[in-house]
């Protein structure tokens, strides 16, 4: 074999290798699982929600909603009810990692919350918002009984909230809307236990909401309610204000004698 022929053979085999590599590369890129493959089939609204998610939530909840260790839980299957409660009340996105997310001015408007809800609901499903209808359409007395058994231990018997362990707390229900209450019971945000529809039926939930909202609207015929927290603060006020007032009066009388 001449030197020229050897050179030509080398060139042709090199060319074949290059063609093969390119072919494999193209083939891989076509056939390989694509990280955004799950996006296929998302509605327009959900895709808009995904965009918001990837800007605002992805740091703590992960690229595929799987959650990030010590940062944020997985969102697969939490459902739109959870999104409504967490984002709609401003608890999410968090400002910083702390014991518990606090209610604040929502970062997203209603349309954006709806888009996020659609995106989360499209990934694993989960509890959904209640169908249309009056969320206070329930028996008041029954609602009171359910509230005292299931809710009052943490949220106080008139819904003023209370302390939990290690800096956490059960928030006051004063600012909660009907839908906030409903989605909270349904999704069990953070440390609140979940009250699924088989445990507390939609009718039961409406009764509880009716009770809570009626309590808030009830007047205080006795005058100042002092936090509505019952005899303990009332006694405290009597002692601090009343007794101190009496002592001051006695001292005053003494100085005038």
């Amino acid at each position, binding site marked *: 074999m001449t030197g020229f022929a050897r050179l030509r053979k080398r060139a042709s085999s090199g060319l074949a290798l290059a063609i093969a590599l390119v072919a494999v590369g193209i083939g891989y890129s076509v056939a390989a699982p694509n990280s955004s493959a799950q996006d296929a089939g998302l509605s327009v609204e959900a895709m808009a929600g995904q965009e918001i998610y990837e800007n605002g939530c992805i740091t703590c909840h992960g690229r595929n909603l799987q959650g990030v260790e010590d940062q944020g839980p997985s969102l697969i299957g939490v459902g739109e009810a959870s999104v409504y409660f967490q984002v709609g009340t401003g608890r999410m996105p968090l400002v910083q990692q702390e014991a518990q997310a606090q209610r604040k001015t929502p970062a997203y408007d209603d349309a954006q919350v709806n888009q996020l809800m659609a995106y989360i609901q499209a990934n694993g499903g989960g509890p959904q918002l209640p169908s249309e209808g009056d969320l206070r359409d329930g028996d008041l007395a029954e609602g009171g*009984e*359910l509230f005292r*058994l*299931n809710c009052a*231990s*943490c949220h106080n018997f008139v819904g003023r909230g*209370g302390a*939990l*362990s*290690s800096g*956490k707390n*059960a928030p006051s229900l004063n600012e909660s809307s009907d839908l906030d209450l409903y989605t909270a019971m349904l999704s*069990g945000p*953070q*440390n*609140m*236990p*979940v*009250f*699924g529809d*088989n*445990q507390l039926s939609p009718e039961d939930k409406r009764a509880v909401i009716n009770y809570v909202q*009626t309590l808030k*609207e*009830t*007047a*205080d*015929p*006795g*005058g100042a309610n002092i936090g509505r927290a019952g005899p303990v603060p009332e006694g405290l006020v009597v002692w601090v204000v009343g007794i101190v007032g009496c002592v001051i009066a006695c001292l005053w*009388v003494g100085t*005038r004698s």
Partner: protein
Amino acid sequence: MSRADLVTLGGKMDGVQVIYAEQPVEPGSAAERRAERQVGASFVGAGLAALAFMVVYVAWPWEVDTAGGGVGLATLYTPLLGLLMALALTLIGVGVVLWAKKLMPYEVAVQERHEGASPEIERQTTAATLVDVGNATGIARRTLVKRSLGFGGLMLGLMAVFPLGGLIKKPGTALSETPWEEGMPLLGLNGLPIRPADMRPGSLQTVFPAVEGGSRSADGVAMLIRLLPNQVADYRAREGQEDFHWNDFVAYSKICTHAGCPVSLYEQETARILCPCHQSQFVATDGAKSIFGPATRSLPQLAIEVDGDGYFVAKGDFTEPIGPAYWERST
């Protein structure tokens, strides 16, 4: 004798002597009339406030309109009553104080101390009289009367204390047993049995024994908790209670082992059960072990299983007394 002389004589007989007396105001002066007007105004004010109290009590609208958000005159009903009563009482007090300070004479009087005991003659005669009366009744001689009176008196006294005995009762097994028994369904507040699918992970439900009046059972009340999937791996039962849970479900007594409060503040993420009374904390994934606060014992665990129809039932009563410790408690 004039009245003033009689007063002085009475004082002398009791060993009292006025050593300084002063009128705060000159009788008939402008200052006296002013003081009188002040006192009178206070008393009249008190009367008017009391009158206003009664008028408000009768005439003021008192029915609160809850539908209207509770604004209106009726919300002032109770506060007005309180204010008017306080005003009446305060003005009476102010009037009395003003009267005493501005109109009553100021005087200093001394009284001589005398011996504590009565004179010897009085003591001896009194003792003799008492003994004489005792003899006259003849109680010392008439033993029948004395003994029968003693008997009657004793029984009367006993009769008065006797009903207290009804308050003393041996508790028997009331403290150590609850209505739970093998195969008894766990009921929700609505009286319906519970299936595993009824509860989502991270939920808690208060459950009652399926007996008459079970939903008012103070000692049988329990918490059925479904742990989160990531908590199941951490679950550790107490020794000898390894088969008390059913898959990811656990049931504990709802009565705190410290002072008997209902512990149902459940933190689903940390699986902690908190007591609202004294801040005791129990860990649901660790056999409800007490980790904080004054409670020292774990919450008793209720052994549960699912029966053939797919409903939760108890596998028996609690294996230890629920609630706070008591004298005869063995563990």
